């Protein structure tokens, strides 16, 4: 096992979790407006997958639940905290909020699955222009039943674009157990759109990193799409106000026990863990403090009259 790599990944995972917990605390104290979707429990996917990205060449699309993706990609805690507080120092100056992030080649939006047609378009553009790089798109199990998602999969299959679809199947869409409202299997329908399909239980960040690395290389070379389903679990509420009364006890128990963050933690020397956690806690606290003090944006600057 590569302990250095694991320590690096653990630090990023712990950063995400600490960030999400801090956000929960802010909301609980009424210090944040709007809404938020945390990614506690799913950090290993964001970190393992996005460790491979070439930010200038590749393009990444996120979802409504993309704090983790953003932090895995950029590490910019202060900008994200600022964005959630609606501050001028935010990722897009507070214009977007938790669900609407844009940073270089990374975009998210609040319509579940709605980014996927664009993601295929970016990949098609790469193909047409003969540019390198791939498009990595996160999506949820719930979003798998949306028409735009299914149409996007068909387009990727028909035009054989360099897309990697990363399904974070955490079993729930909000409170709905997705399986109960879904016909058939994701595997068969994905294959039915002409995409190769891989499934993996997302327990081990190094394993995720290794697996995704293979797929990433393959898509970079073949310029053809792959669909990758991660079994995962959200160990927090869907959004700020969710009491989680709907959880399936067996699922909950399994994933509490197999939290990928704790697994990574257990594999590292205690000393390393302590150092990392202290550093990250300081970093996050500091970032939120600075964000609190940052100014609000000025409408006159952010919102220009129409052309």
């Amino acid at each position, binding site marked *: 096992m590569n302990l250095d790599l694991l320590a690096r990944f653990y630090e990023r995972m712990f950063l995400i979790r600490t960030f999400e917990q801090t956000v929960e605390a802010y909301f609980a104290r009424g210090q944040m*407006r*709007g*809404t938020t979707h945390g990614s506690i429990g799913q950090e290993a996917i964001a970190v393992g997958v996005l460790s491979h990205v070439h930010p200038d060449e590749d393009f990444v699309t996120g979802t409504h639940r993309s704090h983790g993706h953003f932090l895995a990609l950029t590490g910019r805690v202060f900008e994200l905290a600022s*964005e959630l507080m*609606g*501050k001028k120092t*935010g990722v897009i*100056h*507070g*214009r*977007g*909020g*938790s*669900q*609407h992030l844009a940073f270089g080649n990374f975009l998210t*939006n*609040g*319509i*579940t*699955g709605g980014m996927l047609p664009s993601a295929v378009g970016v990949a098609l553009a790469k193909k047409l222009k003969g540019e390198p790089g791939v498009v990595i798109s996160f999506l949820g199990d*719930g*979003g798998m*039943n*949306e*028409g*735009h998602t299914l149409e996007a999969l068909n387009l990727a299959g028909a035009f054989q674009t360099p897309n990697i679809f990363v399904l974070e199947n955490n079993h729930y*869409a*909000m*409170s*709905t157990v*997705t399986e*109960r*409202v*879904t016909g058939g299997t994701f595997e068969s329908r994905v294959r039915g759109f002409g995409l190769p399909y891989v499934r993996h239980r997302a327990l081990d960040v190094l394993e995720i990193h290794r697996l995704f690395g293979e797929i990433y290389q393959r898509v970079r070379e073949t310029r053809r799409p792959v669909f990758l389903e991660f079994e995962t679990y959200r160990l927090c509420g869907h959004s700020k106000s969710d*009491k989680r*009364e*709907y959880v399936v006890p067996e699922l909950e128990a399994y994933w509490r026990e197999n939290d990928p963050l704790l697994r990574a933690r257990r594999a590292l020397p205690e000393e390393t863990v302590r150092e990392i956690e202290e550093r990250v806690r300081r970093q996050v606290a500091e970032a939120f403090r600075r964000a609190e003090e940052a100014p*609000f*944006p*000025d*409408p006159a600057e*952010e*919102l220009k*009259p*129409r052309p």
Partner: protein
Amino acid sequence: MRYIEHLRQAIEDLLAQDPTVYLLGEDIEEPYGGAFKVTKGLSTKFPGRLLSMPMSEQGYTGLGIGMALAGLKPIVEIMFGDFVTLVVDQVVNHLAKFYEMYDRPLHYVLRTPSGGYRGYGATHSQSLERLFLGIPGLRVVAPNVLSDPGALLKTSVNLGMPVIFVENKLDYARPVVTQGAFGDLFVVETAVADRFPVQRLALPDEPPEVSFVTYGGVLQEVIQAQERLLYDHEVIAETLVISDLSHGRVETLPLRGRAVVVVEESWVQFGWARDVAYRIQHHAGKPALALGARDHYIPASEPLERFVLPTASRIVTETLQFLERATP
């Protein structure tokens, strides 16, 4: 009783009294009871009558259309009004057409919570009922805190014509007052008695100089404007709040002000308010100004959001300017 309780009670009555009523939507069953808790508790009381849907707005909007064609009365919930963008084809090219072209009485209500001022950002704050205004074969109805949301919902379910029923997220928690004293100052009365009434909020005795016309959740900002006009500027205003957005006969509204300001939460350009103002000018012959959101997406950050959406203070300022311009 709060707005949400009126709605929940009405849905409960409908389910209890009419076995053909069904609810469709995402996360509407227990233990969630809907993203805004409107249907909380109901799936336990009425097993099998609330059908939790996959994330498939086009699909289940159409599913409801089929149920209506088969004689049922579906009430379909779209979790946020912003997502009606996904169902425009099913509603405009199917539901509305079946109703009128195929001449089938259809009982169909599409409920959706709309509106901003909450920092939810660009795809969770819009008032997109505008997409359905003016489409033949559709009725757009919006309750408010002066009109009983439950009664309006019952009327809509039994209308025999498809209804887009626009609720407001912030109104859910507010108390509803349909007659009598409202706060220390105002009185509520029915200005136009109708299945979808027009309610008036006014001072008990004094005649108003200006009439506001509005609908839905932005009423809150209008009421504040009405107060500030009185206290800070000694201008007396009344407010008429409409619940039948598409078919309400604004041509004959009993407007008592010499000038009219029509306020909507959505973008003012090509919106509801300008259409209403146009008709008031033509038919009542009174000067009518339309106010609404500025021409920008709705940002998350509070000062930006409040710059874009109409606020009490902007309503006050623009109303005063308008009164000056419109002085005979």
